[in-house]
């Protein structure tokens, strides 16, 4: 299981600003190891953010997203104390879900 995400969700005016730092290699499939063998691609493909069971952001990523991906976005309708849930799934089928409380 991958390391937990770091999620910060805070009110910014009347919106909620969410910042997420994920822990993932995001291997491109372009690199070669010391022996000259291609290092297989290994990267997050799908990201979904939910607030009160409603999707507030979804994303499709390729291997060009940087290692240990960072993502920030803003949505309306949240208030302090609400939960925001982020889920990612990578091209190996591994998945991770983490939650944060809006402050």
């Amino acid at each position: 299981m991958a390391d937990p995400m770091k999620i910060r969700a805070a009110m910014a005016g009347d919106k909620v600003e969410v910042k997420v730092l994920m822990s993932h290699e995001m291997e491109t499939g372009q690199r070669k190891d010391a022996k000259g063998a291609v290092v297989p691609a290994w990267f997050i493909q799908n990201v979904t953010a939910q607030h009160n069971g409603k999707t507030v952001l979804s994303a499709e990523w390729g291997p060009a997203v940087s290692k240990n991906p960072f993502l920030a976005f803003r949505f309306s309708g949240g208030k302090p104390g609400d939960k925001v849930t982020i889920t990612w799934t990578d091209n190996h089928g591994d998945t991770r879900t983490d939650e944060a409380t809006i402050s």
Partner: protein
Amino acid sequence: MLQGGGGAAVLGLAMAAGLFKPGRAWAQGWNKAAFEVKTLNDAVKAMGGAPPTESKDITITSPDIAENGAVVPFTISSKIPNTESISVLVEKNPSILAAKFDFPQGTEPWVNTRVKMGQTSNVFAVVKTSDGKFYYAPKEVKVTLGGCGG
């Protein structure tokens, strides 16, 4: 949530077992075709659109010169009404499409993320509206140390 994860795990196993040939789309809608093409127009076509129109209502904020191509920060926002998605494309990367973000109603068409750039290149932000039209804005970013090599 659990269901989705379980489905993806099963698909992963099925792929490992060779039941799905590479090249088939899978898992919660990942647009494989769009992530394989090399040009702006082909990427938009793979997303179901006609060649996009340039727009001044898309803002790309990034360094003009990136010292480290492995981590180039971008903030992209759109003032185009009914913006449904924003994609980040790097023209000279092995595949042009880096990431696509979908904004349901209530989410601001604004995103901040970091992508890899193999070399100095044009970066395109592509906006899709809810009526299926595509718009883009270009920005050149110079890279002094590429982010795709070994």
